[in-house]
Structures are given as structure tokens and as C-alpha cells.
């Protein structure tokens, strides 16, 4: 009995229709079926955060979502968020603060931090370092470069609150 099912969804602004095996999780679908290698496969059971992507505007663990359940959904990955320039300032700050070492956790960190920053922007609040750490607590960095990552996120939070832009990357 076939376990493949047809789905149609939007990935990084592009309408996509595919047949997928029911057990295929979103990260394997993105990486192996669509060739989008930016989202990383880590623990595959929801602990490490390396596979964080956005579904219908909210961050999720890609390994804890079945592709087949996403018929009609909107998915955004690090590739799409880079192309739109939405997190250009955050990416620049990661480089400036040396917040990516091996880089494996970086896409997940960026996608996760982007949600905190956009939630904070609604009230023009600057999240505290404790709040940044709390929000990123579900993302492991095995280089243990957390301090630099928090520095980078805090830098962008302050810059955005000062009206220096929301993703244009301009200092």
C-alpha cells in the first residue's frame, strides 16, 4: 500500500506541489526533495533547534512536523529569509560579533532570534539579555559560542528600537 500523498504548499514564496511519503518530516522534505540545504538536520527529535524554520509565520522544529500535514501551508527557510533581506542586519551582526563558529546551529539561531526581534518590535521593546537567552534556550550551539550570539541579537534589538532599520543591514 502506497504511503505517498500529494501536497501543495508555498516555500519561500514559490508554489510547490509534490508527492511525499507520509513519514517524511519537513527538514528531509526541504533538504532532500527541494534541495534547500540551509536548514540543518541535527538531533531529529526536537531537542537541538538546528532545523528551525517558519510555518505559517511561526517558528517550528522542522523535524517535528510531517511534510504531509502541510498541505496549503506557507514555509519560510533561511534561504527565503536571506533573499528577502528581512534578517540582513541580524546576519551582519552575527558576522561582526563572530557569532558563527562552525555554523551548524546558525540558521536555526537566526530564524529563532528573528521571531524574538519581530515580537519585540511590535512594542518597540528591547529584550533583556536574559530574555534573549531564554528565547534561544531551545537552540544548541556545540561550539558553545552563546555569548557572542546573545551579543549579536542584543545589538540588533537595540538598533531596531533606535529606528536604525528592520532588516536593511544598515548600521
Amino acid at each position: 500500500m502506497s504511503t505517498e500523498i500529494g501536497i501543495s504548499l508555498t516555500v519561500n514564496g514559490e508554489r510547490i506541489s509534490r508527492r511525499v511519503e507520509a513519514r517524511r518530516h519537513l527538514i528531509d522534505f526541504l533538504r532532500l526533495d527541494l534541495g534547500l540545504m540551509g536548514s540543518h538536520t541535527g538531533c531529529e527529535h526536537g531537542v537541538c533547534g538546528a532545523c528551525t524554520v517558519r510555518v505559517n509565520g511561526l517558528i517550528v522544529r522542522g523535524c517535528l512536523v510531517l511534510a504531509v500535514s502541510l498541505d496549503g501551508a506557507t514555509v519560510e527557510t533561511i534561504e527565503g529569509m536571506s533573499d528577502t533581506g528581512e534578517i540582513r542586519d541580524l546576519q551582519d551582526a552575527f558576522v561582526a560579533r563572530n557569532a558563527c563558529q562552525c555554523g551548524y546551529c546558525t540558521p536555526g539561531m537566526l530564524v529563532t532570534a528573528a521571531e524574538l526581534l519581530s515580537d519585540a518590535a511590535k512594542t518597540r521593546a528591547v529584550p533583556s539579555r536574559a530574555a534573549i537567552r531564554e528565547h534561544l534556550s531551545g537552540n544548541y550551539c556545540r561550539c558553545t559560542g552563546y555569548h557572542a550570539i546573545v551579543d549579536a541579537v542584543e545589538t540588533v534589538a537595540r538598533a531596531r528600537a533606535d529606528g536604525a532599520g528592520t532588516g536593511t543591514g544598515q548600521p
Partner: protein
Amino acid sequence: MKARAFRYERAHALADVFRLQSEADGGAQFLAGGQSLLASLAFRLSEPSLLIDISRLAELKGISVLPTSDVRVGALTTHRELGAHPDVCRHVTLLTEAVPLIAHAAIRNLGTIGGSLAYADAAAELPACCVALEARIIAVGPGGERAIPATSFFTGLFTTALAENELIRAVEFPCAAPGDRSTIIELTRRSGDYAMAGLVMRATGGRQASRLVYFGVGATPVVASEAANALGPTPWSAEKIAAAQTALDRDLDPPADQHGGPDMKRHLARVLLARAIKKLEAQPEAHAA
């Protein structure tokens, strides 16, 4: 770390669910938020022949305030929605306080209250909150609905009073009365991980009689009634707190787990009690409407 192959069906109405489930002859599981289920599929701890996706069932969604001022929370309410809902914050503040302790933001965006209760992890926050608040769990099966008191819902490790062909439709929380106070506190290795031990504490009525429900120290949420009796009404003197901490030895029989042995768990339970009392005393009375 790949799940065994299974079939998948998306349910569009409750009637679909029960038909699909009876056709699968015991091999079906329900998919709601999937935040525990997908991990157990990856480990092949769970090997269904059919996954029935209930995540789009309108009948299981929404939060409403009943005429009694009780709050009815649809089973598919995500943790994010629960934590941000103004009626929940006004009438059942404990839940608003509990949500940030549940896993991490990316998991709270998809995980559901119904899924958490049906999965019944002994270290999870929401089952303990439901027991502490004496919530009613509304189950629905092919024959209709029934209400199950949260206090008798959790029957063992990952085991509930739900029949195989029932699912959770909603959870009804009694509205907090004037003077009620409540808090939740837990100890974790990493923020958002399952608790090594946790405690929900309520104090109700003019005498502030307390209700203590521990999680992560047994197969189910554990009501510590001996300790609550020893603590008695306010004011809570240092002697009464010490007596309550001693009484915990009669309430709790914690099994060893990956975090440590029974002695460590008992120690954590005593620490949690002192901290919860401090937290509760710092609260203004009656955050009820």
C-alpha cells in the same frame, strides 16, 4: 532516527476520526501538534499503521468563557495561544504563568493542550496544572461526550482514563475565586527541558488552604495532601513550612530517573515547597476577576 512507514489521513470532522480509527483496527494514532508524537515516531517507540491528523478539526478549537465564568479551552489550542489569551490570563492566571515553562518557543507554537494531557508525561506542566485547578477534561468518542475530572484522568505512566476510541475535545477550568492565589515553579537542567521536579501550589478561600501538586516525581501528577495539611492556613510560619517539608516524605515516593535518585527528588521537592510559598506570598491576593 527515521519513523517506520505509516499511512496518513487528514480528518475534516469528528465523524471521520471515529470511522478511520475503527477501520484501522487498533493501529491508529492521533496527530495533533505532534511535538511529542514525532519524537516517539523517530525513536520507533511508537509504530502506528495509520496516523489520523486531527489538527484541522474546528470542533476542537477555540477558547470561550462559559456562563459560569469557567473557561473552556479547545483541545487544539496551542501553548502559544493559551499563554497569550486575555480570558485565560484574567480567569485562570496559573496557565498564563505555566506556558513559558513548557519546552521552547518553537515547540509552544505547535504543541497543544489536548496533546499534552493525552500524552500524559509525568514531568509535564499542564497535567499538574489541571489536577491543581481541578479541571474537567471533556472526552469525545463515537457515543458522545463525557467529562472526566482531571484528578482521576492520569492513571499511570503515559496512561490516562481515555478509552482507545476517545479523544480530548476540550478542557474546562473553574474560574479563580476572589482571594485565590496560585503559582508554578520547576527545576530544569536547561530552561525549557522537562522538569527534574516541579510544583503547582494553590491557596484558596479566606483561610488560604493550600493544594500542592508535584510533577516529575512520580508516574503521574502527585497531590501532596499530607504536606498541605501540615502547612495549614496562613500565616505560614517557619515551623509549619518545616513540618510540611517533613510531611512530603509521606506524600512522595519518587522513582529514580535520568536526573537522579529518590533522595535527590525528595530534596528538590522540599526546596520547591519553600520557594513556591515565597513566590505565593509575594503575590497580591485575588488575581481573579
